[in-house]
């Protein structure tokens, strides 16, 4: 699949880049997970941890940028290698944004938990974040396995995330209209939901980058949207074979 390089130090450098991406990915996944847990369990301590952890991703992105630029300057890579390196820069930028969004959710924990909100809202947020996290996890798994032929799942799940977000949005609006005292906490929840939905978008971006790295093509455009009927699929796992 990949051309054999004469310089093995070069290979080491490329390997190092992908290892750093994986580490950033793992970190981002953990931050999102903990931010939502902090929100659902009203745990300001955990939220503080998430906020502190964000610097790791900032540093990761800076390091990857620097390393990638040095490699490009020193090795003057072609075709597949160049795609790999440029792709790495793009993915690390997306992961850094995921971290920012998780941090933003964590920052709202205190404001949301001041007044107790209906549990169904939190269940909805949890379900939304499970979808977004599954998207991120499976996309990063494809980065590891390079089996881009399975990457079609991102489009479906992207639709599911949108549908879930829309539904939550409506529910939040109803609560706000019911009682003006709900407006402040529900606005925070609304932003949390929006952030999580955007985390899903970044995962989709990463999927597109991976597809480009491996094939040199753009991920096939979205298939036409379903008409009135809606569809969700619950399987959080893609069947493994």
């Amino acid at each position: 699949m990949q051309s054999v390089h004469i310089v093995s130090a070069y290979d080491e450098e490329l390997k190092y880049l992908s290892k750093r991406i994986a580490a950033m990915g793992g970190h981002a996944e953990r931050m999102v997970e903990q931010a939502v847990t902090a929100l659902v369990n009203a745990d300001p301590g955990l939220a503080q941890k998430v906020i502190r952890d964000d610097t790791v991703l900032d540093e990761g992105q800076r390091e990857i940028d620097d390393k990638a630029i040095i490699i490009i300057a020193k090795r003057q890579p072609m075709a597949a290698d160049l795609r790999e390196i440029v792709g790495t820069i793009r993915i690390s930028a997306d992961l850094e944004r995921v971290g920012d969004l998780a941090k933003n959710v964590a920052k709202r924990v205190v404001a949301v938990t001041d007044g107790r909100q209906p549990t169904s809202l939190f269940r909805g947020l949890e379900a939304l974040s499970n979808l977004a996290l599954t998207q991120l996890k499976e996309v990063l798994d494809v980065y590891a396995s390079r089996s881009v032929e399975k990457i079609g799942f991102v489009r479906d799940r992207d639709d599911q995330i949108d549908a879930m977000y829309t539904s939550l949005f409506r529910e939040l609006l109803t609560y706000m209209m019911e009682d003006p005292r709900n407006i402040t906490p529900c606005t925070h929840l609304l932003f949390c939901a929006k952030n999580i939905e955007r985390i899903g978008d970044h995962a989709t971006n990463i999927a597109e980058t991976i597809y480009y790295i491996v094939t040199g093509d753009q991920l096939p455009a979205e298939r036409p949207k379903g008409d009135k009927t809606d569809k969700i699929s619950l399987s959080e796992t893609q069947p493994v074979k």
Partner: protein
Amino acid sequence: MADLDAEQKGTAQTMAARLWDSRWLLAAGIVAVLAVYALAGISAYVVLASLLLLLAAAILPATGARQSTGSGAAIEAIGLQRLSGEYLAAAVADPLIIFDRAATIVHANAAAFAAFGGIAPGMSLSLKFRAPEMQTLLDGVLSGDVASDVVDYMEKLPVERAYRVSVSSVGHATDLYVLVFKDQSETRRIDRMRADFIANASHELRTPLASIAGFIETLRGPARNDAAARDQFLQIMQSQTGRMARLIDDLLSLSRLEMKPYLKPGTEVNLRQTVDSVIDSLGPLASENAVAIERHYADGPLHVPGDRDELFQVFENLLENACKYGQSGGRVVVSIAHSDAGSEPGIDVTIRDFGPGIPEEHIPRITERFYRVDVETSRTQKGTGLGLSIVKHILTRHNARLSIKSEVGNGAAFSVHLPTH
């Protein structure tokens, strides 16, 4: 080709030579098993079994590797090395992964394949296990800072799992390392289950309890001498207690499912027979609601891997919903069909009703616990709002998908896609 007589005579010597040839390998293997044992606390049985297997692999004539007798010793030692390594790994019941200096997977046993989908030899371990604690663990042992290490590792998706992971180098200067995952999910889940159960139960039982308390008060006060009211109130109280009992049953069954997120492998389910018995068992409900059930089954055998009781529960919940909420449509169509959509061939079981349908904005949400589109209807139908979350749980375990299609006014179709692989 090979001389049979000579071979029979030589068996004893070959055996001894084979054992001697593989002495380092054997020693390394035993050390590795013991190390793993010490680190992860695998049951003594597994260790014993793997040692026995290792010995057996060394002693028994390897019938497969038998092409030449001249340079046999060296070739057989190599064959043996590969074989015994795999046997050893296979004999360990926990997921086990052997990797090299570059963190590349060299071998993973069946348990590892089952637990972590999408791993393959040649793949980078640090790209797959991205959690910060796993990265630290791998970095530590690969940099040579520590010879072995243990860490607690949590996975949240697709199902929550907790492992105690131990890593150590194999033998001396083999440049190989072994990673063993000891499943701790059970203990952790018991704690979680307790907390969840109490939270859910206390929240959901409050309403029926409050209403019962209210009726008791009325019965002891204003309605003390009103026989007609008393009868009516007692009836309501009875249905409320019934609801509470069902709620507890459902919560327990959900908790039990969360306790064992894996399916025991190897069992086949006959969908035709299972769906038929679901339809039979819901016959009374259907006729009570004046709903006719139609069947459209594909020809030929309709089998999928899975757990019969659990799939029964899935179809029971879906059909029950169709009869309850789709009552006004007067009929429900149950169909089983082969589907080869996409990369995963499977069987679709679809339960379609012709009732009021489900508004678009609720569809993504109705599998959440206690989510009801219309609280009043669900209450009059004695629903607890847990049916579909149980369905979702079971299907996740089966690697299956549920898709819900509905148009307001035109009924709803719940489709279960079960992979056949």
